């Protein structure tokens, strides 16, 4: 059974799909040295860093953009 025309009426429900399992490297953010530039939030392709700079590992694919774009080197990529 599918919806008529395969319409999806549950906005944003890709959240059911935990893409964290794709990850081989994991970003660890050090809030002490963080300068609140928000680069990691802006550039995260998977919208998984919130305003408080908490990383949602359910979705983080471990691309490493956040660490690479962090001007204060506050994010470290470590092997899962």
């Amino acid at each position, binding site marked *: 059974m*599918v919806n*008529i*025309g*395969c*319409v999806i009426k549950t*906005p944003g429900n890709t959240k059911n799909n935990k893409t964290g399992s794709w990850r081989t490297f994991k970003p660890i953010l050090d809030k002490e040295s963080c300068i609140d530039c928000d680069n990691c939030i802006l550039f995260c392709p998977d919208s998984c860093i919130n305003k408080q700079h908490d990383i949602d590992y359910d979705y983080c694919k471990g691309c490493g953009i956040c660490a690479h774009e962090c001007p204060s080197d506050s994010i470290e990529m470590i092997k899962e």
Partner: protein
Amino acid sequence: MVKEVMTSNKAVAEAVRLAKPKVIPVYPITPQTTISEYLAQYVADEKIDAKYVKVESEHSAISAAVGASGAGVRVFTATSSQGLMLMHEILYAAAGMRTPFVLADANRAISAPLNIWNDQQDSIAQRDAGWLQIYVENAQEALDTTLMAYKVSENPDVLLPSMVCLDGFILTHTVEPVEIPEEEDVDKFLPPYVPDHAFLDPKQPMSIGNFADPEYYMEARHDMEVAMDNSVEIIQKTCDEFAEIFGRQYGLVEPYKTDDAEIIYVAMGSICSSIRVIVDQLREKGEKVGLLKIRAYRPFPTEAINEVIKDCEKIAVVDKNFSFGIGGALYADMKVKFDKEIYGFITGLGGRDITPEALTEIYEKTKNGPEKAVTWIGLKEE
């Protein structure tokens, strides 16, 4: 009730005015063009409260139609021939996305060679797109069918788009008397379109036109088959409701003098008028002959046809289209569905006039048993 003399194109435009679509994306092409012109004028004169989208191609006409219908409003578009061919890809998308709008196709031959005249190859080529296809015989039927098409398409058990097929020039450019329904009667018959299954509203976000993998695709397509099956009953019901309000009765098929007929012509569109004249002439000579006019080609009304043809001996299917190596599309469908003596006749391609002699010849050939299962009629001798 006003009765006026007009072309089928004008009759379609009048139906559209009465159906009150909100968006009309349309691109001109012979012989549909006057529909696009009438509608542009109606919008310019505020006779329709709609946005007329002056698209740059038929492909964009149908794309804008799907977009607008997806956004939740009633939509109309029209085309012909090459234009319908250009729409081909999006016709499938429209049906798959279950956008229930109406398209009028002024039936015209397909290139090459370039030809602007009537046959039905263009819409027949789209028969598997998931659209309802109704073939009309005259201007009145063009008007009435356009109104009924909305009601059928928008039915929650159908939600498939409809194509109203009217023969190019023979109908689109021929004037004849047409009764124009009263607006209040039409409003009663056809209430505004209020979609539930798909619309675009930031207050209730939904994603439409999505990607479906092998896990879901077959179900989605099968649902369309179910909807198409549902439409058989709904078309008949809609015809009955229409008759109650407007006094003109239509059906999935229309038999003429078939009760005791030994040979039955089966045909679609304007040719049925001429065949009726020939049936009368042959009847006067004592021939037991009748006509079965197919109005609904998709859905294919198997039961309704069977009811009419079950006792006849032979069937002559008249097609204005053909599939290489097979014959006409209607002929092929009849052969698949019915185990009877059925012959196919290809006529009137590219506007070749179908004369009374040609129609009589079809009868004679069927009666005597033609040399071939499929015969081209009206072909010039070397």
